[in-house]
Structures are given as C-alpha cells and as structure tokens.
C-alpha cells in the first residue's frame, strides 16, 4: 500500500512502523555515537529510549527530526528518508512532529500562553477564540493554566518543561518526542506527566518516543524499550522483558548497580598512569 501526501512524497505503511532506522552510523568528531544501529518505532505506541549519559539518546531524536544527518544508514519517518528531504519537505514533515526539549526551549520574548499558541498560529487558521480554548486546555492538562500570563523567565525548570510539553502537543501531532520529560519534576507533577503521556497516546493514537533515565517511570508507560550503550543497542523488548533480562549490561543499567560492565567513567587512560604522568 502506498499513497502520496500534500508534498508529493510517497508514503508507505511500513508494516506498522512509524520510524525505521537502518544501519545508522553517526560520529561526533572522531567519537563514534552509533555504529550500524537499526531500530523500529511502532506506530501508535510509546517507545522508550534509555541508556547511560552520553550514549546519544538526544542525538537519536535529532537524527529523527532531521536536525542532524547520519554519516551512513537510513532514517525513515512515515516512509520518508529524512536526509534526502528538501528543506521545504523537511519543514512540512516537522509540522507533524512535536518535540519536548530537555531545556524546554521556550521562546523567551513571549508569554506562556503565546508559547503554547505559537504552533497553532503558524500552522492553522483557527479563530482567536478557538486558539484560546485549545491553549487553555493544553495548559490545564499540565497544571499550568493559571501561569498563562507569566513569562518563561518567571518559571522554574520543571514548570518550563511542562509548558514545553503543552506546546509540543498543541497541534496533536502524529509523532511526539519527549527528551527527559520527567527531569526536574516534583513527585506530584511527575505522576501527572506520566499519566498524561499515556493518556494522550491512547486517546489520540499518535506515536511517542521517550528519552529518559527514569527507569521506573519510563517502564511504567512504555510499550517497548531500547537500551543504548557503547554505540549499539544492548537490549530491547517490553518493559517486563528488559527489567528481568539476565544480560549483564542491561541488568546493571536497569537496576542501577554501581559495579558491572557499563562504565561509569568517560573513556580515559589508567588513573595511575595519568597521575604519574605529571604536568607536561
């Protein structure tokens, strides 16, 4: 089955996968971030991407969003090979994506209300009263309807990320990418955000990718989990399969064990050699 969208690009149903990554290799300078990584993000499901810090989880989201180009391999979103899209096609596709950035990435010169209204204003012709209703509903969902007139500089980090979450879902996009959605949230807000992501996914049927370190929260809502480390996928499966895996690296990461094959230290030479080398 195939059809064409408004930009004239051919779509395929991809056997139920919204995103297909094949043999992805990506370098930052001389450092390998991904070496021949392949993964699928199923349509309409919540997929968690987990792994130690610095393994390239956010980089994967940027590759999917077309902000970075792979050194080799393919990244297909809804059947479209991202690196091959023209600038216009890429921006058209991104209007069907929502992304929650780690920093929130709110526009600092406009209020909370205007930040959430922004995607609606640029991508729709909705009348002002309808934009107001949609914005208030989205802000109510993240518990910040009362903060609509505040400026981003007046928000805490957790609040800013919740406003960014409201902005990411303002257009009810086909794909929502959450980069550390639980970071900096108090227990009540964390519970609400976890519930909201699950609820939105079930109600709207969109595809969700969550990048997170919070094992318990991510596992509680994800349908499928990929664990990345050492430039490869070290484990994948349903939350139950991943949580109870006997694979040593997976077990160490999911259970937060201090000792094991997953290194805590960034690659470096032996400590003694380093200390004895002195100042050159």
């Amino acid at each position: 089955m195939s059809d064409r969208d408004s930009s004239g690009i051919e779509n395929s149903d991809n056997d139920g996968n919204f995103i297909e990554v094949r043999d992805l290799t990506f370098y930052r300078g001389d450092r390998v971030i991904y070496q021949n990584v392949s993964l699928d993000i199923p349509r309409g499901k919540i997929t968690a991407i987990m792994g130690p810090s610095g393994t390239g989880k956010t980089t994967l989201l940027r590759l999917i969003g077309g902000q970075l180009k792979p050194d080799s391999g393919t990244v297909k979103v809804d059947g479209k090979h991202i690196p091959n899209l023209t600038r216009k096609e890429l921006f058209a596709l991104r209007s069907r994506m929502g992304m929650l950035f780690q920093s929130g990435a709110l526009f600092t010169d406009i209020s909370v209300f205007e930040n959430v209204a922004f995607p609606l204003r640029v991508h729709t012709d909705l009348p002002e009263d309808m934009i107001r209703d949609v914005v208030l509903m989205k802000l109510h969902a993240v518990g910040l309807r009362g903060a609509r007139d505040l400026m981003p500089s007046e928000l805490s980090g957790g609040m800013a990320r919740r406003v960014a979450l409201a902005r990411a879902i303002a257009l009810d996009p086909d794909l929502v990418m959450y980069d550390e959605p639980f970071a900096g949230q108090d227990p009540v807000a964390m519970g609400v955000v976890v519930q909201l992501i699950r609820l939105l996914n079930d109600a709207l049927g969109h595809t969700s990718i969550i990048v997170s370190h919070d094992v318990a929260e991510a596992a509680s809502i994800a349908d499928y989990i990929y664990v990345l480390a050492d430039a490869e996928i070290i484990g994948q499966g349903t939350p139950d399969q991943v949580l109870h895996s006997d694979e040593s690296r997976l077990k160490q990461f999911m259970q937060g064990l201090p000792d094991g094959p997953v290194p805590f230290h960034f690659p470096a030479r032996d400590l003694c050699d380093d200390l004895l080398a002195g100042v050159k």
Partner: protein
Amino acid sequence: MVIQALRRVGSKGVSFLESFGASGMFLFHSLFAIPNIRNNFPLLVKQIYAVGVMSLVIIMVSGLFIGMVLALQGYNILTRYGSEQALGQLVSLTLLRELGPVVAALLFAGRAGSALTAEIGLMKSTEQIAGLEMIGVDPLRRVIAPRFWAGIICMPVLAVIFSSVGIWGASLVGVDWLGVYSGSFWANMQDSVQFSDDVLNGVIKSIAFGFVITWIAVFQGYDSVPTSEGIGQATTRTVVYASLAILGLDFILTAVMFGDL
C-alpha cells in the same frame, strides 16, 4: 615542516571558503524565501523598532556632536582664507557624502549589529532556534529574514537623520555661536549640494553598509558556538568584521561614485 605549514594554510583556506559558502547559502535562504506577509510583516515592524528606533538616540547625539565639531574645525580653517561663508557647503558635503553614511554605519554596527548577534546566539544556545525548527518553522524566514530586512531599511534612514542633525549642529555652532551669516551658510549649501550626486549616493552607500552589517551580524549569531564564550567572540567578530567591511566598501563606493572610474 614545510608540508605541515602548507597543510595548515590549506586547511584555513578550505575553512574560510566553507564559511563563506555557508554564509552565502544562508543569505540566499534568508532573502529569497517567499515572504508570508501576514505573519512576517508584524515581525518586520518589531525588528525595525528594535534595530532602528532604538538606535536613534546614539545616532542623533553622535550626529549633533560631529556636526558641531566639523563646524568648529571648518570655521578655524576657512577663516584663514576669508571663506567662512563656505562653512555650510563644507559641512553638508562632508556629512552627506562621507561622514553621515560611514559614521552612522559604524555606530549601527556597534549598537544594533552586536545586539543582533548576541540575541541570535542566545536563541541558539537556549535551543529556541532548534525549537522553531522542530515546530516546522524555518528560522531563516522567521528569525533571520525580518532582522535582515529591518537592517537594510533602517540604515539609510538613520544615515539621513545623522546627516540632518549634524548639519543642524553645525548651524548652531557656525551661525548662532561663531557668527557666520546664516544666509550664506544655507544658500551656499543649497547651491553646492546636488540631490543625485550627493544625497542619493550617500543613501546608496548606507544601503550597502546596512546590507553588509546585517549580513555579518545575523550570520555570526546563527553560526556562533552556543556558549557564553562563543557568543562573546561572535559579537566581537561582528563589530570588527563589520567595521572593516564598512571602511573598505566605502573606499570602493567612493572611487566608483566620485572618482570618475
């Protein structure tokens, strides 16, 4: 040793060409995208206010003092030859042809150019540019293009204001303080200043300066390393590159316009 030196020179050359090519593509995408009048016009107005209106004070105060100093210096020299009546002619031609466009552009680069670079650099470091991209909005059209056009529109207006205030300042010193006859001051100015040769050429110069300053400023901001040090360096580069570009371009334009080339 020689090979290494050659390699370094080659590497720097390639890096310069890459940067120049990137800034050219950046310019192309910013300027020649199909404008969305409904969405982009309010952004343009906002930027004209930020870039132009907010630069008015420094432009007017500087113009006033430069006009006054020019009148003082000019009067001292002209009185030696008994030609103080030509003060209006001297001041107006100097301001309209050279000092107005050039000094206004240097001030504009320092005031508005550095602000543009810092603002865009900070937007990059706080992921606002990436946020726009992921919302499906092209930052070159939304952020860069309005700032670019605002710079090109504001620069000639500011240069004309600079020259006008400078001439007024010169009349305050020359006519009201030093006692040059006002009739000869204004009449000589009127006789000697040609609209197409002097006023229009000055305006053309300032449009060219506005284009170059804003191009450098927005590109340096967009291309900056998103750290506090990186943004500081980009802001410095904007002022240095823009100032040198203004002076170099001024020589070329003057040679073409007034040098009978």
